[in-house]
């Protein structure tokens, strides 16, 4: 009964359900873009430069990949709360705060994985690019471009992680109806209220989205192997 009601919500294009899906996608996409802008260059810098403490940075990156979302939520909450250092921005309990929390959560994942990919590629390309007298900036561009398909897969992994996350956005977003309520927080709330059709409907959409993202990642990798080598 609950399942058929959930299906009906999806198939009839229920406005509440799709508004939640839209906000979830918007927040997660923005967080993924922000994390890419921070994480990819950071990964490239750590991969290509030697500096004191580099190994410690790599260990920290790798460790931060397993950041507990509720801890990230708590940290961002403390930063953005009225008495916090960024309290004047007044963005706590807004979608912007949720984007920040998800960005903090997935940037280490993107930085750590892209660092590994770029470093491996650099080990392969080093001699040849040096012999071609390719400058430092052009090297970075070359490596990012030639690793593009692996990097897209990493970004999709980050997207998947952010989309499935509940603890951090619940804390900094406040789960406010029609404002900061996203798929995961709604599923948690509606399940506790016993409103299973909406929770199941959103669960189906969320799983479908994650499957589509993974299928896309798989497709990108296979297409790249066939066409770019």
């Amino acid at each position: 009964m609950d399942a058929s009601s959930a299906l009906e919500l999806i198939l009839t294009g229920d406005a509440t359900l799709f508004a939640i899906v839209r906000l979830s996608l918007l927040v997660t996409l923005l967080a993924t873009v922000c994390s890419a802008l921070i994480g990819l260059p950071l990964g490239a810098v750590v991969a290509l430069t030697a500096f004191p403490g580099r190994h410690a940075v790599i260990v920290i990156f790798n460790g931060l990949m397993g950041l507990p979302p509720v801890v990230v939520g708590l940290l961002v909450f403390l930063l953005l709360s009225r008495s916090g250092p960024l309290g004047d921005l007044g963005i706590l309990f807004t979608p912007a705060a949720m984007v920040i929390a998800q960005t903090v959560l997935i940037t280490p994942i993107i930085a750590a994985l892209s660092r590994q990919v770029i470093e491996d590629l650099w080990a392969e390309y080093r001699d040849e690019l040096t012999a071609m007298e390719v400058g430092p900036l052009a090297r970075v561009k070359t490596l990012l471009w030639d690793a593009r398909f692996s990097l897209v897969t990493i970004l999709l992994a980050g997207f998947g992680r952010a989309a499935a996350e509940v603890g951090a956005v619940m804390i900094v977003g406040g789960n406010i109806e029609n404002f900061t309520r996203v798929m995961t927080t709604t599923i948690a709330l509606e399940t506790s209220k016993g409103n299973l059709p909406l929770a199941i409907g959103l669960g189906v959409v969320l799983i479908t989205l994650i499957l589509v993202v993974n299928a896309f990642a798989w497709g990108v990798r296979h297409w790249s192997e066939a066409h770019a080598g």
Partner: protein
Amino acid sequence: MLDRAASTSATSVLGSDLPIRFAGVDYRVGAVLILCGIDLEIAGGPPTILLGPNGSGKTTLLKLAMGLITPTAGAITYGGRGMPAPGTRAFVFQKPMMLRRTVAANVGYALKAAGRRPDRLEIARLLAEVGLEGLDDRPARRLSGGEQQRLALARALARDPEVLFLDEPTASLDPASTKAVEDIVGRVAKSGVKIVMTTHDLGQARRLASEVVFLAKGRLIERTPAEAFFTKPSTDEARRFVAGDLVI
């Protein structure tokens, strides 16, 4: 094949890198001395072949000459200067790295890196020069070993080099691919590009060399015209190597 003597490479105005002179050059990695007391002059003209058994230091000497690594003792000069002019040398590795792009894009990249326009006609000309015409859109990593080596040669030629260094370019190739690479190297040498190539293959050295530099155990044992090296080697190590004995 373009005649390099007639080419108007922008880099040539900065001065020739030849002769490349090694003066008392050592190369050491930690406690291991890879090359010891190398005095050598590589001048323009027909191909110079660096010959010697595995581990004799051929590749290290080639990388030093290219400027990919720096000596731990001694000095290398290029046309009398302490630094080589940019864009005058090219290097083909034993196992060339293929960029994750198409064949044409690999050549285009090399042209761009050399400060030249990655023009379609120029790419086509370079691919035809190495016998890879028609493979423009093929992913470079899908090529056979011989084709990859010829693509590496096309990329090297895209630099319009004055000196072309080749590190055992046919080491893992079958006879047909080896001949294709040797034919290209022969044509490039005739066009006026100085070829400096390592090999441990005596037959290949006989086919290509004008001058032989023989190395063993990190030392320069003999440097002599190829004919003299193969008919009357002047050192015991060279005699044994030419006779096919194991020189370890």
